[in-house]
């Protein structure tokens, strides 16, 4: 069907009234050009400058490249030089920009007056007050609470505390105390080792969400892909991944097998697997492992099967597979490390790795995680006791928000503190309770350094002038308050003089410093250390089992949210609007439960439940999912703020209110608690992008069993038969001829690229980094919860998640795929546009010309993939009702992409601005565009390297090769849309084969 015929038909059937768009016509307002007085060096307006720095959105310490245009950072990418993240970046890292330009940042130093009002101060006054308070509090208890600081700022705080007689407490809500205590039990060292996922050949995760918040998610997801992805023709099979946990998390969705033991019994499972390996001599045993025989014998599969809830034969099978791979890696964390017996579970998993001979190979002590130095929850508990006891006259808080994660106890304790100072750039709950606020700069605006892993010294530099000019780096404040000369930058450089002694390699300091700045730090390999079993490991047995739950209560698991983390992401609309990778819910938290549970209580999605634990009560809307044990409930962290800005405040519920404030034995916090559940008459519509939880046979996501995938040879196309039914052959041939003819006319004659993508579903995990990267690159509007409920979201790329299995034949699994505009060769959206706003470009894109669009919306109607999005409101109108970018959030807008108005359709353009940019650069350099010159934002962010972009007409390009891959298929290909995106079928091994 071509446009002319379509419009003729339309006219013949009664005609449509032409819609005249009444917007934006008229003379442009007068613009002014204001030149520099003295231009910055080497800055070309219109050309971006990139600075290397370090992301501080979590403790992983990924390297960043900040893209700066005209003095504003507008996009963050991973730093390819950093061995932590290999040039990739997660959604939280992308959203750091919204923390930088957040409209609810504290703009000036503030002090609370006697009547409780806030009063602005000058910095001299503010620092004067700080110094006075420090002097007055000497000897009466001074405590400085920070987040994890492994570099210069941490050193400065330590030094200042020594000088003032105070103490420095680090607090990270996700501090993995169980990992440290478990490693201490197992190996006598409380360090957190580095896990070499890339070298693993069999991966078992006991709750460790290594793609979400566990230790170093971007780096581990990338390494996992190298082990687990399928490569045609690779001799060794990909690593098998088994996920053990009570709920199917994002990490679990990539598993080949999901094992859901009784919550808290994961340690028994690990010991049973170790017993099978030792008893059957399935791996070369380290010498001292003989000490474990007694412990293991007591935990043979038959003995623990009932307690674990898994058949002994399955346990034995898993153990055999683990050992036979000769490259097993078992990791523990997440929910498994958050039960009261978390440390014992970690120690049991350590034993499993040890008897399989993997400690020193896939588990590397030596390059330890910097997070191992964080304070523990017990230390915070001790602090709370001191605060409540009136033993602290002065409390300073930076980079932590304990009032959100310990809502009752910490707030009350604060009442007994003489004077409270907050350095937070945001009005979070802790800051709202302070007496003096000294707003810090954002990490993107200041100097600092950190050590995310032993051997890596990550440098942080300001990438632009401060957005709020009256904020001051906390390091500078401390130096001034202490009466020291020099800036914090001088202090950081001073530390780097020490590093220069060790790593200078003959360069003078200036050269060494500039090299470090350019690369984002110094990257060295720490030597692997040998560890041996800890002295009392044989006594592990007692604590591994875990306490049974209360009879009339259900275990509730509080799991960390990928987007909101421990709550810090809640003030960023990109993260609020990012559909949770598992539940697809936005802007609100939920409680997950199994369909059987829902049937028993007659619940539907959105019904509000009252959850009561011994420590608090919350109201949570229900989300029903097969991806959880029927006897378990789960809620995500992050929401329920009482302050923290317009996007976070008074939204949803705070699950931390349900948890105990007392530390578990291992010094950490138990994130599992028993709750009673009460139905309420209330209901809430969930803001979700999920349409159907199941594919219903539509063939959106193809899955191949590993055996079948390995049989496929280059040239075979198992999915091709489904795409072109025999009866359509002649029609398709005629159509292809007509296309060929059109391709010789006018603009379309001659050789053009055909831009295409290949998305490997064996790599895609559904982590949604691409979604936020697209929001950042393409000026996508965040619409808010009310509009999201009405499905008015603008996400050009979305991750679709479908559940599979769940009957007697197949266990529950989940498959994911990114869905974006397929840039169809025979696009259904093109002929139906009456004004030629949607059309086909000579280089194979489905073009969308915003200024032509009149808002008929027929294109979105016709699109079978539903990847076209309409601007129902004016999201860019300053002060408008649906404003997406209140000042200064508009500073993150990409100047290379039009900001769309109300009434205009938009969709993925394959980052056409990057395509044109690369073409312009190539033209200037008198060369052609090479494969790899153009990377769309989604492909650049993806930690799994799942998305490949290039020119299909370039025979040497990666995408041309992947488009011919035997695993390749097109979504809804039977509609003859001829998409430019080839998906490569997911490959599974073990129980979850064939959706």
């Amino acid at each position, binding site marked *: 069907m071509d446009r002319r015929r379509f419009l003729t038909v339309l006219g013949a059937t009664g005609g449509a009234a032409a819609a005249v768009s009444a917007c934006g016509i008229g003379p442009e307002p007068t613009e002014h050009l204001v030149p*520099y*007085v*003295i231009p910055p060096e080497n800055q*070309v*307006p219109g050309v971006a400058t990139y600075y290397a720095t370090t992301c501080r959105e979590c403790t992983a310490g990924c390297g960043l490249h900040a893209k700066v245009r005209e003095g504003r950072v507008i996009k963050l990418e991973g730093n390819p030089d950093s061995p932590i993240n290999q040039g990739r970046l997660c959604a939280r890292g992308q959203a750091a920009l919204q923390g930088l330009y957040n409209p609810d940042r504290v703009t000036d130093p503030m002090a609370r007056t006697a009547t409780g009002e806030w009063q602005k101060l000058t910095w001299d006054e503010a620092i004067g007050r700080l110094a006075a308070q420090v002097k007055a509090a000497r000897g009466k208890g001074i405590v400085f609470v920070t987040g994890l600081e492994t570099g210069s700022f941490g050193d400065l705080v330590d030094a200042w505390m020594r000088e003032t007689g105070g103490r420095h407490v680090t607090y990270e809500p996700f501090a993995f105390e169980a990992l440290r205590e478990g490693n201490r039990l197992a190996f006598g060292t409380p360090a957190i080792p580095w896990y070499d996922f890339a070298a693993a050949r069999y991966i078992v995760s006991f709750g460790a969400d290594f793609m979400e918040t566990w230790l170093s998610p971007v780096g581990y997801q990338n390494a996992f892909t190298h082990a687990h992805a399928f490569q045609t023709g690779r001799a060794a099979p990909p690593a098998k991944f088994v996920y053990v946990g009570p709920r199917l998390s994002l990490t679990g969705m990539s598993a080949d097998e999901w094992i859901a033991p009784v919550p808290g019994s994961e340690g028994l499972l690990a010991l049973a697997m170790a017993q099978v390996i030792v008893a059957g001599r399935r791996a070369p045993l380290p010498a001292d492992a003989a000490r474990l025989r007694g412990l293991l014998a007591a935990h043979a599969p038959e003995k623990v099967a009932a307690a674990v809830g898994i058949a002994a034969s399955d346990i034995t099978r898993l153990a055999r597979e683990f050992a036979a791979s000769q490259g097993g890696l078992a990791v523990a964390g997440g929910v498994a490390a958050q039960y009261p017996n978390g440390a014992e579970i970690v120690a049991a998993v350590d034993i499993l790795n040890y008897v399989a001979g993997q400690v020193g190979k896939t588990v590397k002590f030596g390059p330890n995680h910097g997070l191992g130095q964080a304070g523990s929850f017990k230390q915070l508990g001790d602090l709370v006791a001191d605060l409540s006891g009136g033993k602290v006259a002065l409390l300073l808080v930076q980079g932590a928000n304990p009032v959100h994660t310990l809502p009752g106890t910490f707030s009350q304790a604060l009442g007994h503190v003489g004077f409270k100072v907050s350095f937070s750039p945001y009005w979070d709950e802790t800051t709202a309770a302070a007496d003096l606020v000294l707003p810090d700069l954002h990490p993107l605006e200041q100097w600092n350094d950190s050590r995310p892993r032993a051997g890596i010294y990550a440098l942080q530099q300001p990438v632009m002038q401060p957005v709020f000019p009256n904020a001051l780096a906390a390091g500078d404040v401390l130096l001034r308050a202490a009466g020291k000369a020099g800036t914090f930058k001088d202090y950081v450089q001073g530390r780097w003089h020490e590093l220069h002694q060790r790593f200078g390699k003959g360069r003078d300091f200036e050269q060494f410093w500039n090299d470090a700045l350019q690369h984002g730090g110094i990257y060295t390999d720490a030597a692997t250390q040998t560890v041996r079993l800890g002295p009392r490991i044989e006594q592990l047995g007692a604590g591994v089992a875990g306490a049974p739950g209360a009879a009339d209560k259900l275990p509730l698991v509080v799991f960390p949210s990928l987007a909101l983390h421990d709550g810090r992401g809640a003030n960023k609309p990109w993260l609020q609007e990012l559909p949770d990778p598992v539940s697809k819910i936005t802007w609100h938290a939920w409680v997950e439960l199994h369909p059987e549970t829902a049937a028993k209580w007659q619940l539907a999605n959105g019904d509000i439940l009252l959850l009561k634990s011994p420590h608090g009560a919350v109201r949570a809307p229900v989300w029903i999912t097969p991806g959880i044990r029927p006897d378990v409930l789960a809620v995500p962290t992050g929401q329920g703020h009482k302050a923290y800005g317009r996007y976070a405040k008074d939204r949803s519920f705070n699950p931390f209110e349900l948890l105990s404030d007392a530390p578990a034995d291992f010094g950490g916090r138990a994130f599992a608690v028993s709750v009673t559940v009460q139905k309420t008459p209330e209901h809430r519509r969930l803001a979700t992008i999920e349409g159907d939880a199941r594919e219903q046979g539509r063939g959106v996501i193809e899955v191949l069993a590993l055996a079948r995938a390995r049989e496929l040879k280059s040239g075979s196309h198992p999915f091709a038969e489904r795409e072109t039914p025999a009866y359509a052959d002649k029609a398709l041939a005629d159509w292809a001829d007509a296309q060929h003819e059109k391709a010789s006319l006018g603009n379309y004659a001659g050789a053009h690229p055909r831009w295409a993508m290949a998305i490997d579903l064996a790599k895609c995990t559904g982590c949604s980094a691409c979604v936020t990267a697209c929001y950042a690159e393409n000026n996508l509007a965040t619409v808010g919860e009310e509009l999201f409920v009405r499905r008015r979201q603008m996400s050009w790329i979305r991750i679709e998640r479908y559940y599979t299995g769940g009957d007697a034949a197949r266990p529950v699994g989940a498959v994911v795929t990114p869905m974006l505009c397929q840039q169809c060769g025979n696009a259904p959206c093109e002929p139906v546009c009456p004004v030629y706003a949607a059309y086909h470009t000579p280089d194979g894109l489905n*073009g969308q010309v*915003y200024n032509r669009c009149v808002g008929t919306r027929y294109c979105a109607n016709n699109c079978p993939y539903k990847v076209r999005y309409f601007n129902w409101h004016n999201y860019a109108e300053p002060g408008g009702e649906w404003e997406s970018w209140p000042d200064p959030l508009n500073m993150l807008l990409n100047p290379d*992409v039009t900001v769309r108005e109300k009434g205009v359709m938009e969709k993925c353009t394959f980052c056409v601005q990057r395509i044109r940019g690369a073409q312009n650069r190539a033209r200037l350099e008198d060369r052609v565009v090479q494969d790899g010159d153009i990377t769309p934002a989604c492909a650049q962010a993806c930690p799994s390297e799942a998305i490949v972009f290039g020119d299909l007409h370039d025979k040497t390009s990666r995408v041309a090769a992947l488009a011919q891959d035997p695993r390749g298929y097109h979504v809804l290909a039977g509609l003859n849309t001829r998409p430019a995106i080839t998906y490569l079928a997911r490959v599974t091994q073990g129980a979850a084969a064939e959706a």
Partner: protein
Amino acid sequence: MTKRSGWAGLGVAIAVTIAPPLSPAVAQSSQPAPPYKAPVISDTGRLPGPRQPIFFRHDIHAGQDRIPCLYCHSTVTISSEPGIPALQTCFGCHQMIGGSTPSHQAEIKKVREAFANRQPPHWIRVHALPGFVRFPHQRHIKVLGTEGCTNCHGDVRTMPQVYQVATLRMGWCINCHVQRNVSRDCTVCHY
């Protein structure tokens, strides 16, 4: 990101006036044989174009003094933005050149005061395209050469006050693209 002090920057500016311009595509002046003498303008009110805060005369600078376009608009060969010159560029000469007539002296005094007070002039933009158009200057200069400015901006060297000579509407752009047989694809400019 270091800021040079004003005086050090002047050194650069002075050096530049003696040496050829910085831009890689050096403009070779190809003026017609008799040197252009900018006329005295007694009635500026009749001149087309917006009145600017400082009465900068392109006909004196670019026409009579033969300063190449790229001396001030230096990024036109490498960026979509041609670049309005920084005040430092003006001051580079005008710290010494005070003007030969009282009206010239008055305008140059404004330049010196602006630099001294760090208050750059707010020039009125003459050529503006709507927000949904991406115009890459560097592609056009690559094809048309550094003398190609006159194609779209007219003979600026004879303009006492810059005004828009071409409609800059899409039809006008497309005409040139059709004549020269270059891409007329929408998404080359609209994205």
